[in-house]
């Protein structure tokens, strides 16, 4: 429906590499350079976080990025203004990742309208499960955008119902717990993806949480339609500050290559 499905279709092998960054960390100017740079380095879809004061689904690395961005006063309007500047030179598919209250407070319809205006794909809201989705997905669908559904290792029999109502792609949470780098992922991702595909053969399914190495990314992409990487990148941004663009883009190039070679 939105540019999200196209992002998967346009990739060399139909598999998407999806990096996540928190907008405003370390500054919105650097975020702007990162978006453009990561697109050039092979990112198929970029997950852009609007910072929230209390990111309950995040581990320490992304929590700190949220706080850094908020200290820089990166507001929802500032993030949209930054995307507007990006759009002059770059049309990479973008999806917003934030928390329900950020969208609700802005006005769900107003938020969707602004995203549509900027040619964005929609939102990922980790604190909006299937039961509460409609309040968001109806106004977003009306604006031609997706509210991405998540499935988790605990979802079991819920996966089919979630997949039936999903749009854009299904975000497959690889592990219990919050975001953060993990040395291994033991969940049976293949079975989770199979349940999604049985309901919706054409709906892309990308895996996130815990992925940090090209080998992990390739392994996850092999059993799904893509890999999402957040904490590993956000940690580099935290370490390198305003000089993070070059190392992050080099890392994204390696990761995208790994996903596209599956």
């Amino acid at each position, binding site marked *: 429906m939105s540019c999200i499905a196209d992002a998967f279709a346009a990739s060399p092998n139909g598999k998407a590499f999806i990096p996540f960054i928190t907008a405003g960390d370390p500054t919105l100017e650097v975020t702007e350079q990162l978006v453009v740079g990561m697109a050039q380095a092979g990112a198929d879809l970029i997950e852009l976080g609007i910072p*929230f004061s209390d990111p309950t689904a995040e581990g320490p690395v992304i929590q700190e990025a949220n706080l850094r961005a908020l200290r820089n006063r990166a507001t929802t309007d500032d993030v949209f203004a930054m995307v507007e500047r990006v759009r002059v030179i770059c049309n990479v598919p973008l999806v917003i990742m934030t928390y329900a209250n950020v969208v609700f407070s802005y006005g769900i319809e107003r938020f969707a309208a602004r995203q549509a205006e900027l040619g964005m794909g929609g939102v990922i809201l980790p604190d909006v499960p299937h039961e509460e989705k409609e309040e968001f997905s109806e106004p977003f669908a009306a604006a031609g955008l997706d509210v991405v559904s998540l499935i988790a290792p*605990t979802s079991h029999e819920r996966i089919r119902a979630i997949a039936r109502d999903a749009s854009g792609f299904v975000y497959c949470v690889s592990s219990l717990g919050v975001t953060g780098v993990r040395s291994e992922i033991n969940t049976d991702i293949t079975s989770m993806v199979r349940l999604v595909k049985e309901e919706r053969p054409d709906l892309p399914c990308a895996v996130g949480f815990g992925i940090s190495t090209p080998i992990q990314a390739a392994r996850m992409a092999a059993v799904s339609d893509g890999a999402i990487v957040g904490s590993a990148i956000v940690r580099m941004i935290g370490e390198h500050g305003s000089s993070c663009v070059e190392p992050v883009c080099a890392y994204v190039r390696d990761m995208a290559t790994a996903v596209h070679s599956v």
Partner: protein
Amino acid sequence: MGNSSTSRGRFGIHGGQYIPETLMNAVLELEEAYDRYSRDPSFNAELTNLFNDYAGRPSLLYFAANMTADLGGAKVYLKREDLNHTGAHKINNVLGQALLAKRMGKTRLIAETGAGQHGVATATAAALMGMECVVYMGREDMRRQALNVYRMRLLGAEVRGVDAGTATLKDAVSETFREWTSRIDDTHYCLGSVMGPHPFPTIVRDFQAVISRESRAQILAVEGRLPDAVLACVGGGSNAIGSFYHFIPDKTVRLIGCEAAGRGIDTWETAATISTGRLGIFHGMKSYFCQDEYGQIAPVYSISAGLDYPGVGPEHAALHDSGRAEYVAVTDDEAVNAFEYLSRTEGVIPAIESAHAVAHAMKLAPRMSADQILVVTLSGRGDKDVAAIARYRGEDLHE
């Protein structure tokens, strides 16, 4: 802003289940178990035994004769939840949830705590029932409430400091939710107030409703009539909803929730959610929250760590919307005055949280007539607050 057709646990437009997918089956399982056991006579008999023989229920409804004479208006009754085992109403909810968790086969309780009262109550129930217990507490609160930290450890609980955000209650709640997403199978999140995702606001309310079930019968027995108003302090709102619940159908009884205004509702240093907040979605529920124009949750302040929370339970939000309950804001100064007043007048040292309700009763009673009745819930005892109040009055007293 129509509610999702499958959304559960609504109080008017408030409530719901705004949590990560990882936790959905856990809350559905909890709801199912609660539906089953809340109708199970053996579960209810066991809980009643724990209430009566372990926690010391029923709690007294005490006629505060000195206070009544001094204020020169309505008769003031105090519902003495401060006399419960562990010194507060928190034990009512904790015994219920621990028993429920045990029936569900859980062996481990996790909980958030602000001042430490809910943490102590959870550690107590875990010790009693032979369960493992981990309590999350903001690093700042651990420093302010060192005695309660030690008390929890004494009871066999592990206390984990939370450094995230403002290192206070809201961050402890967030961290406990994070922990729950990483370990669900053997673990029950024993939430301390009528907040969070469905079914917590309903479960906690039902366990706390024992307060008004008793006080309604007690006042009818003593006075032969219902009170004119019931007062209780509101942070998340568990003692207040427990104090209100069985009076809700009695339309002549005013229900008054007393929020913490901190340094005043016209300042940033306040925790008065209904007076200063607006509709939002946080910590699993739609309700009123102190937040900025972009929905960032505001740092809140009150002298009372137990009321220092930026949200309010969804049932209170709905009772506010419908006008069935009123919510007033009480400042630090007023609460401290009431804390000292009740200590001197009745020989009862209230928790600083409960002192917010006493403060409003002190304003209300003199404007009422001698044949009118106020019931004020003393949610907890004030021993934990003595050092902080001394410091507020300029005395350098440390525990």
